[in-house]
């Protein structure tokens, strides 16, 4: 059976031999990456099968079905994944699903920020806060819509790095060490982003609640 051999030299992944082979669900992350770097078609399929659950999960958790065309966003996420790989590759040890999930979380946060820029959240053009929320009891749907829209609006107002740390920790359940690896910063920096982000989130949440009470 043809196989891929890789060797690690001073942190660089070196491809020793590449041979075309069928998609194998048992391919390791290292093998998939080596296949991608060599432009192998099977590696595209293996990458998709390895990470699509994490990618879709991140998008669905953050956007919660509100006007999201997940097919387009899935495609945008995979394009972003390839773009990062073409620019700088990944550093060992690999955790492709977690990394891809973090990349797609960034894509979803970009979408939220773009919508706020276009003032869609505030002017209620039907993109956020007015469509059914997936995974929510229909009886709770109305209040859930506004809760989701509020959470999304607050996330979009935070600094991107803080929003990313909060989503990775509080929504996707990664620990600090994983967040540090996924975002390429030290654990201390990840912790700082998380605690500042949380403080800022609660501050802004308090502000909007106060504004709501004043308006009422």
């Amino acid at each position: 059976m043809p196989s891929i051999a890789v060797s690690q030299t001073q942190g660089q992944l070196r491809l020793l031999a590449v041979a075309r082979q069928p998609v194998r669900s048992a391919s390791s992350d290292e093998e998939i990456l080596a296949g991608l770097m060599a432009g192998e078609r099977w590696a595209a399929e293996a990458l998709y099968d390895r990470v699509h659950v994490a990618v879709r999960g991140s998008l669905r958790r953050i956007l919660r079905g509100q006007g999201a065309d997940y097919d387009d966003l899935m495609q945008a996420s995979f394009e972003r994944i390839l773009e990062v790989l073409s620019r700088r590759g990944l550093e060992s040890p690999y955790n492709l699903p977690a990394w891809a999930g973090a990349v797609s979380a960034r894509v979803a946060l970009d979408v939220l920020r773009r919508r706020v820029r276009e003032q869609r959240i505030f002017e209620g053009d039907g993109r956020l806060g007015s469509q059914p929320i997936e995974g929510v009891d229909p009886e709770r749907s109305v209040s859930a819509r506004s809760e989701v829209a509020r959470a999304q609006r607050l996330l979009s107002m935070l600094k991107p790095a803080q929003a990313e740390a909060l989503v990775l920790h509080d929504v996707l359940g990664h620990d600090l060490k994983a967040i540090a690896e996924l975002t390429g910063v030290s654990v201390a920096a990840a912790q700082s982003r998380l605690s500042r982000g949380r403080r800022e989130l609660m501050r802004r949440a308090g502000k909007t609640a106060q504004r709501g009470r004043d308006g009422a």
Partner: protein
Amino acid sequence: MSEPETVESPLSVLREPLPAESSEIEAATRARVLGALHAGVEGLPLARARARRRQRVASVAGATALAAAAALVIWIPAQQGAPSGPRVEAAAPAAPPALRVQQLEAPGAEADAAVWIDAAGASHALQTSSGAGLPADLRELRSEGTRVALRTAGGASVDLAPASLLALAAESKVGAEVLKLQRGEVECAVPPLGPAGRFSVHTPDARVVVHGTRFRVGFDTRTCVRVSEGLVAVHHERGVERLRAGEQWGCEQEAPERAEADRTKRKTIRARRAAESRRAKQAVSASGTLEAENALLRDALLAERSGETARSRRLFEALLKRHPDSPLATEARAGLARTRAVGESGAR
């Protein structure tokens, strides 16, 4: 007895479980995404090679620029003694990338007028009125007794009033051009820019961002913006003003007390920001147990999500007992209330 009031994290709604998706939808998405992914992966080796080449070129260019700057720093002092050499005012530290100027003219330059330019870490008088011999990395322009007209690589025409000081910089973003007006007045005519294009004028207290327009920015003690054509956004400490043709911002003569009030307000804001920053730093360094607190909260949330209500409750309680003043206490209390509610409904 009523439940104590809890403040739940606004993000908790995003943690609610997601329903399973139909296999048909998944299959359709797979087929669609894979179509594009195959093409992307096949082009990946080429894209990698291109990216590596760009990195190499950037490193070589950086090294060359450094060497050129070092050579100039050595050469200029050597020339200082020479009678006909350029007049050197001061050597500057390493600067950000320079904005590219294609053309520069000082049509009204008289014998007593001068255009001072700063390039490659040194400044000297521009001896010609036509801009001949203009350095590629022009960084600063000082017009004394004459107007200066220049055209940027992006196509913007800039007219600098006499007695003005202007720094030129290119942002890391491709296509972005920034003029930093320290003093005086500048009039700009900007052609329509592409989607990536951006042109802005920064003053000490405002940022004027445009997309294809004609406008004038002045700075003496405060910024004054007048728009002749198009639309301009002025970002300042109180927010953003969008100006249309014929409108102006900050140009009215202000009563001295109002100007003083503004200055006081700016000082107060700066002091408050500095205090907030100090407090934030202290909070981070004081919370040495934050990682442990985070771990407890994470485990509690994971247990809650996977339906282990009793374990989740124990973990929330442990977090509150061990770290009652934790910044995560609010969220822990909310979680505890949730798990208790689940436990009570289960008992009923």
